[in-house]
């Protein structure tokens, strides 16, 4: 057990190290692709803390990305160095998650999910109508606020940190309580778990992480608009990645994010397929639900078990 954990820690450190030094030996285009995949990993793994571990499916996560992104743009335009705006964006996203968490967590199952769609859309509409935030056309970051290498390192290291956070939570008493809430909320309440506080806490943590990613998003693209960060399709993609990869696990959302990140990059290069991306994602979701509800990770495990069986029994 201990050696397994040591191996995991070594693996994560190796990946983090490789990503840190990647800018010195990889092409700019490859680095951009890696950045996109890292963003997808951050979004999917953060969502999975609430949606997977605690079983609360929210389709309103673009709101947190947008809050983080807008915080960074608005403060940077006032002259604040972008890096300093990141913690505040995370804090505001977490604060907003608490405010919407208390009323929406009174709802259970699909009712909660529907409410989060409403919240996400409401935030988009409000952002589009705020004149100081540029309205529907959005805002551009001030010139000279962009350093590619440090942004690349921040996003990829955040992705590695998220895997570590998810792993730590999944092994903690906090993680067990989240799992108890997911598997039987009444039993959890009856045994003394304050399920509302638990859900609000993990929601705030995951919102803060997505908010952080939002700030990096703004710095990377140098431009933020309601259409880019508050898009409903974005909220939907954030849900699809962990579900396709393997919801409620640590590795599943990472797998899903890598697949989606790759698909997105491939589809973006073919204009005809770009508009049908949602169609492809929908088909993927249906396939997962029908054939392997545990996602890609479940498929990998099943194939691996079959191989082992063949190795030991048939050989």
């Amino acid at each position: 057990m201990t050696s397994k954990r040591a191996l995991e820690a070594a693996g994560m450190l190796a990946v983090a190290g490789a990503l840190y030094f990647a800018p010195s030996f990889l092409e700019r285009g490859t680095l951009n692709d890696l950045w996109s995949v890292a963003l997808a990993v951050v979004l999917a793994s953060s969502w999975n803390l609430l949606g997977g571990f605690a079983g609360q499916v929210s389709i309103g996560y673009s709101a947190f990305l947008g809050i983080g992104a807008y915080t960074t743009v608005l403060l940077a335009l006032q002259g604040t160095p972008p890096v300093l705006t990141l913690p505040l964006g995370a804090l505001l996203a977490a604060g907003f998650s608490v405010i919407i968490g208390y009323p929406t967590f009174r709802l259970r199952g699909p009712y909660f999910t529907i409410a989060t769609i409403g919240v996400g859309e409401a935030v988009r509409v409000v952002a589009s109508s705020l004149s100081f935030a540029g309205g529907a056309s959005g805002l551009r970051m001030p010139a000279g606020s962009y350093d590619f290498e440090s942004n690349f390192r921040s996003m990829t290291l955040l992705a590695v940190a998220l895997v570590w956070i998810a792993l730590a939570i999944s092994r903690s008493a906090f993680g067990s309580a989240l799992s108890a809430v997911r598997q039987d909320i009444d039993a959890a309440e009856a045994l003394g778990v304050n399920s509302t506080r638990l859900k609000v806490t993990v929601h705030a943590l995951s919102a803060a992480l997505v908010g952080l990613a939002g700030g990096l998003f703004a710095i990377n693209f140098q431009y933020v608009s309601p259409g880019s960060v508050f898009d409903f399709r974005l909220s939907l993609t954030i849900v699809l990645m962990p579900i396709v990869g393997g919801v409620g696990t640590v590795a599943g959302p990472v797998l899903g994010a890598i697949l989606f990140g790759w698909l997105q990059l491939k589809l973006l290069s073919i204009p005809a397929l770009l508009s049908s991306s949602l169609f492809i994602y929908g088909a993927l979701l249906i396939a997962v639900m029908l054939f392997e509800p545990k996602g890609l990770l479940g498929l990998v495990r099943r194939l691996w078990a079959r191989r082992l069986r063949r190795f030991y029994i048939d050989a």
Partner: protein
Amino acid sequence: MSLLSVESLDVSYGNVQAVWDVSFRVEAGEILTLVGANGAGKTTLLKTVAGLLAPRRGRILFDGRDLVDRPAHTRTSDGLVLVPEARQLWPGMTVLENLEMGAWGKRARAESARTLAEVFAMFPVLEERHAQKAGTLSGGEQQMCAIGRGLMARPRLLLLDEPALGLSPRLVREVFASLSAIRKAGVTVLLVEQNVAHALALADHACVLETGRVTLAGRAQDLAGDPRVREEFLGVSGV
């Protein structure tokens, strides 16, 4: 003063009233059973006492303190613990994880190692299967795990919702024997049961619930001899 005192409780699901003006008391150290047919309101009553449902009217006094406005999870730390109907274990967790989650409250967690030893002593099969997923246990083992999980919260009053449901006669006897051991250990028990004969044989006091109302109450022994109970629930007619 009674440990638990339920006074004029009305509980409704929307417009449908399930419990009508129910009052009863549970004294410290006893086993009280609420018996009745399917749909009599037994589970509703127990869930209301545990805080999972809110009553429309009435009071629930635990140790003299009104619980009605206290959410379910805080009642656990007061010492009132529900073992829910159909076990409601967390199926994806191991037996040990289920038991450990039972000791979630601060007070219970501080004593969890000692309580765990007590639970394993009472249900040795749980120790044997501690690493197994709870969803893969047999019905009887799941029930023991559910009771064990409830005990991990160090209850003063244990609320049990039909622990004998779906168990073989031998397992029913085993589960009921464990309830009497739990009472001996100083835990008061409120038992909801459809298996009237067993429940009346075990309990000190009993209430008969019919369509949401208490129709009979008294010493369990007396109720077991009551002609109405014998005819209605024990299948003995023409006494």
